[in-house]
């Protein structure tokens, strides 16, 4: 069990290291010289050279990588080319704002979709199943910005209960941002939930048809007990990884939705930085997304270990 855990953690760290190299290389491989891009086409060669020196671009790539990763480990991602402020602080601020959306989304999407998926699976081929399946299919096929727009139309324009756009900057407090969180979170949750609902439904159906669930029923147990004790642990296993992937997907999904709502989060920062070619910021955000992905998958692995005793025990037999 411990070896399993250690192996997973080591693999996760390896993945992170690899992705940091990839992120670094990808940014380096962007067409054109960074200094030229920042200063524009008309810059004098002297100015370009000066900037290159300031950015450390005259040093070999691997040295720059080592420098960058060393800084990143201490939370120092360099300085923004646009605002000349430290990247770390700026990213952290936006990340905090996005986390607010993410937490709300995950909380509602995961619990809601699991409940719906399990219900659909239990009421297989009856009306609750048909209703849930159809709605989740629609949620799956509509892109998040359309969902967001429809939600704005409904709750900001027709019935103005929630703000359509955020008027505060990144430094706004939680109290100021909280009313603005609901619509972005809802649109993300709708798209995300669709996948989880469908996965939960199929695995619940599979498990409910298994022999051990039949045995549990024939033991005279109540349906509630059969479902919670016998069916769910096994049914949740495949769903867990779908949840992990979807939570990780939030990092990307947030970029689109935040721009629709002008929400000062990490997605908005990413888009602005790409437009401004603010390379250190892009690099930092890319690395953070990688961390989120890896952490989500590690969490799913540990979760499946909790649900599946085969992964925990060594399978020694009693003779």
């Amino acid at each position: 069990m411990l070896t399993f855990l250690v192996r997973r953690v080591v693999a996760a760290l390896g993945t992170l290291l690899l992705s940091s190299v990839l992120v670094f290389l990808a940014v380096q491989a962007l067409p054109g010289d960074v200094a030229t891009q920042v200063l524009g086409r008309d810059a004098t060669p002297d100015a370009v050279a000066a900037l290159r020196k300031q950015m450390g671009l005259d040093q070999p790539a691997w040295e720059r990588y080592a420098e960058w990763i060393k800084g990143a480990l201490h939370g120092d991602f360099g300085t923004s080319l646009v605002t000349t402020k430290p990247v770390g602080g700026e990213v952290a601020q936006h990340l905090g704002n996005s986390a607010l959306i993410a937490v709300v989304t995950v909380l509602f999407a995961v619990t809601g979709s699991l409940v719906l998926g399990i219900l659909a699976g239990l009421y297989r081929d009856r009306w609750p199943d048909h209703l849930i399946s159809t709605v989740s299919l629609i949620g799956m096929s509509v892109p998040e910005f359309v969902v967001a727009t429809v939600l704005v139309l409904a709750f900001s324009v027709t019935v103005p209960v929630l703000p359509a756009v955020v008027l505060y900057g990144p430094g706004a407090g939680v109290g100021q941002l909280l009313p603005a969180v609901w619509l972005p979170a809802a649109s993300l949750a709708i798209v995300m939930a669709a996948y989880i609902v469908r996965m939960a439904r199929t695995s619940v159906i599979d498990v409910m048809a298994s022999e051990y669930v039949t045995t549990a029923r024939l033991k005279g147990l109540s349906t509630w007990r059969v479902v919670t004790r016998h069916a769910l642990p096994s049914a949740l296993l495949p769903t867990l990884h779908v949840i992990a992937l979807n939570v990780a997907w939030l990092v990307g999904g947030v970029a689109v939705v935040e721009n629709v709502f002008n929400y000062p989060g990490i997605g908005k920062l990413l888009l602005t930085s790409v437009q401004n070619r603010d390379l250190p910021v892009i690099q930092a955000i890319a690395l953070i997304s990688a961390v989120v992905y890896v952490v989500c998958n590690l969490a799913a692995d540990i979760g499946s270990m909790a649900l599946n005793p085969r992964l925990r025990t060594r399978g020694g037999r009693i003779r």
Partner: protein
Amino acid sequence: MTSLPAPIVSVDELSVAYRSGGREVPVVHEVSLAVSPGRTLALVGESGSGKSTVAATLLGHLRHGSRITGGRVAVDGRDVFALSARELRRLRGGTVAMVAQNAGHALTPSMRIGRQIAEAGGEVPVTELLEQVRLPRPRELARRYPHELSGGQQQRVAIAMAIAARPKVLVLDEPTTGLDVITQRGVLDLIGALREELGLAAVLVSHDLGVVAHMADEVCVMHAGRVVEAAPTRRLFTAPAAPYTRRLLSSVPRVTDAGLALVGEDGTREIRPRAEVPADAAEAVSVRHVTIDYGTASRAVDGVSFSVRRGEVLALVGESGSGKSTIAWALAGLRVPSGGRMRAVAGGLRGGAAGGSAGGSAGAVAGGSSDGSSGGASGGPSADLSGAASDRSAGLSPGGSAGAWSGASSGGRSGAPSGASPGGDGDLGVPARRRPLALRRTVQLVFQNADTSLNPRRSVGDAVRRPLRFFGTAGSRGEAASRARQLIADVRLDPDFADRLPAQLSGGQRQRIGIARALAGEPEVLIADEITTGLDVSVQAEVLRLLDDLRRERELACLFISHDLAVVRGIADRVVVLRHGVVVEEGPTDVVFADPGHPYTRELMAAALEPEPGVGAERAAVAVEGWEDAAGPGGVWVELGGGHRVRRWRSADG
């Protein structure tokens, strides 16, 4: 018999149907039966006879999509299908309990054993229940998960779960199918004892007539959803009335049969004498001191030696975990032995496989054609195109065969590189992917589970065609297709089956396709790994007959792996008994069965259940209770003559 108490279970004119594609398909038709307290009723029949469906209705359970179309099921005086949900739950826990077919699947994988038993209700402590089903160290066991138990232990846990709430009726759905004879005997003895102890009425569902004869008081024979015969056990087995029952009974192989039983339409039995293997038949496979390890810790096979001659069926028998399947897998090249030598000694070069130098020589082996009729080493000499073939025949010619396995390939002639000579002669100690093509062709495996070893999305014709093309036995596409049809006909199936998918065939038909696929490579050695396990007796008889025909026609060397002694008795010429990866006894089948020398062999035979009430019980007394290995430096074997030898042992008591 006259004053039986009122029945606790009574089923009246029960009919069940399920919906399929908008049609009602009847599965059970006007079945009536009754069981009194303390009695055991067996529902017997082949798969699809509706016996399990009837048994499940005693617990008010129907499969998804099925419904009652008539009749009534009453348990303990109450109509099961008229109960409210709450009352039904009380019935299931308290009045009727079920032991499901496959305990491995019937236990929830994510729950500890103890909790699963505890939630079945009742006042009896879990440890006491585990003790009652004779499980060791109950306290420790209760904390285990199902996958940490062996198959027999899982079945015992399932029984403990069923008797937890002290029910009045126990429904046993194929409780020992898939367990080996010794484990089966243990579980059945336990069920029998608990039945007495708790005064249970039992309904036993089984396709195994040996189990039924051993356990039941009354028997209902079902066929296609109807009861064809119902009678007290002894009368049913001694004087079956219905032709179907007679046929069913005749199909069951007996430990006393000296050959395969051929069953007529009217249920008459005729024993076909075993095909005589010529005394000078060439060795086809030789296994010497082979050891196979799983990982570093456990040794599955320990120093096993045997050989199979052409046209001979050698049976490997033993309980699960004895290493018999491991040996099969190693011979097929799916597992590499960690010690010892395994060789295939080819008897004939076929289809002009990549031969060495030209130059036919006298004394080459007969049957160099590609028509599948194999040439035995005993056949008349004929010219062969390959020099390599003559290399082999030099070692294999009559007289030089017995025991000369090492000389056969490497020492016989110069120029035959060991392990790589074309034509199928070579070292089997390497994995399949590193074997030369011809050698791979020589040794073919038929899997235990035909339904999982065939690709469900490919037609069975495809499955047979692939090895034909792969081994180059058929040149063109058209030839492969026609050869595939021929092979399907060879296994006694309609060649038009080639276009069907595996799901459209029955279990026995799929197993035949598995055999046809193995034959496509024109092998000289066929490994049959429990190929009749899980088949209905009549289907099993057909598959065995086919295998027997094929080895006669093609002089196949066949390694037959089974835990079913009655089957082995009918088909095998010689028997090797394995225990914990070690050979304890070997010899000609008739001799070993008539006079088993090793206590373990006796134990196996005692555990085998015959379809004759009361027979097994007498034989159990023959088994020696305690014994230990006495093999010392003075010699491992006691030779009894005629190739019959027994590993040295002594009574444990001194």
